């Protein structure tokens, strides 16, 4: 099995189990980690911007099917997040947890900000208040949860690519 396929399957499983099993246990008041975003970030850091973009789009579509009224929103936000993470890969310093966590947190904040922006643009949500009361704390938690997962991915050899 190729490295790419292994990575994609492992991260798909992470997103699936994380969002369906772990996230409900770690979410309080709508604030919790976004495992699918972490999976997209790891995929992009491991395989590059193209894989991150496509992977984010597919994963976002899967999430969107659960809320048809927002169909396309998660796929847009996650494909852009995967693209950004893949582009940042060249400048990324593997092995420093604080950097890894902060990078994913910024990615999560940008992802959620885009979400809120589109929702506020269509008149379905406010922007500023949820950005600070929900998106920011969620981004922090997502960054914190991402640290051990990125370390585990690194230990499993998913991030060791010299291409």
């Amino acid at each position: 099995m190729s490295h790419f396929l292994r990575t994609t399957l492992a991260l798909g499983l992470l997103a699936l189990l994380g969002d369906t099993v772990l996230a409900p246990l770690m979410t309080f008041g709508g604030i919790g980690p976004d495992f699918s975003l972490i999976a997209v970030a790891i995929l992009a850091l491991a395989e590059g911007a193209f894989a991150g973009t496509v992977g984010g789009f597919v994963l976002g579509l899967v999430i969107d099917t659960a809320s048809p009224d927002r169909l396309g929103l998660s796929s847009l936000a996650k494909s852009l997040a995967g693209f950004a993470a893949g582009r940042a890969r060249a400048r990324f310093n593997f092995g420093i947890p604080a950097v890894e966590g902060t990078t994913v947190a910024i990615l999560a904040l940008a992802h959620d900000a885009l979400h809120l922006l589109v929702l506020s643009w269509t008149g379905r949500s406010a922007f500023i208040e949820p950005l600070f009361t929900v998106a920011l704390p969620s981004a922090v938690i997502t960054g914190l949860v991402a640290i051990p997962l990125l370390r585990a991915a690194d230990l499993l050899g998913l991030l060791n690519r010299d291409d």
Partner: protein
Amino acid sequence: MGLNLATHTRRSENLAVAVCAALSIGLLALPSADRIRVAGVLGTVLTGPYDRFAAFVADVGRVRGENATLRAEVAALRVDREAAERLRRERDELRQALGLLDAAPSDLVPCEVQRRRVAASASLILVRSVEAVAWERYQPVITVDGLVGRVHTPAGPTAAWVELLNSSGVGVSCQLVRTGLPGILHPREGDEFDLALVGRDEDVEVGDRVVTSDIGLLQGEAAVPQDALPRGLPVGVVVSVESPPEQLFKEIRVKSLASFSRLDVVFAVVGRGDWLTSVGALPDAAVPEDAAPDGAAPDSTATGTEP
């Protein structure tokens, strides 16, 4: 995997994000009804396999739980069966010690009807079995429907004359299944019988099933004791019940389950205590001979003579 997404130029990456963004925005721009329909299709394609897998896993968990419950029930039933088996053995031992006959016939020997003799005194058929049978007088003979007669005279190791139940003068000790009431079955005409000696106030209904009773019958002036048939052999069904005011007993008419006019293959009932001598081992071999009830001793001299 043939598609390698890891090595791409910046141009292809930009193209990918542009396409994905355009598709996403296109989906967002869809009318609400179309969006829901597309989401349904995508859900079937993208999450359907996972949903089915999750349902399968849930089913496996449920089945495992059920299996655990069933295993516990099976274990409990096995314990119960062991206890019942032990009680049955104890009952058999006690019955043996008391010299009681086993109520359940244990084996049937198929026999072909070869000849028929109808006389004023008795209707007889000659039956022949493939294997040797230790014929005994009054040994019951049945069809798949019910009792048809009893051995009258052995005619060799594999043949015997059987007296049909509708022979005049035949009396069979019977009982009603529903109430357990005993009575004596006498032939009337054809396949019909009278069930005598049932009190006029007893509870008997049309449709009640009649089976043999294992109570012996003393019949005739000579009071010759007849061996009791095994209890429970199906005989007939009550077809009419009357209670004449001037009589002490009911007039009960019983229709035989077995047909006496179509007898091709019958079965000799063997394996019941003292009946059995040659087919297999004696089931009650441990019973001392002096423990057997009167009249139940096997007749070891199969003469082979015709009646």
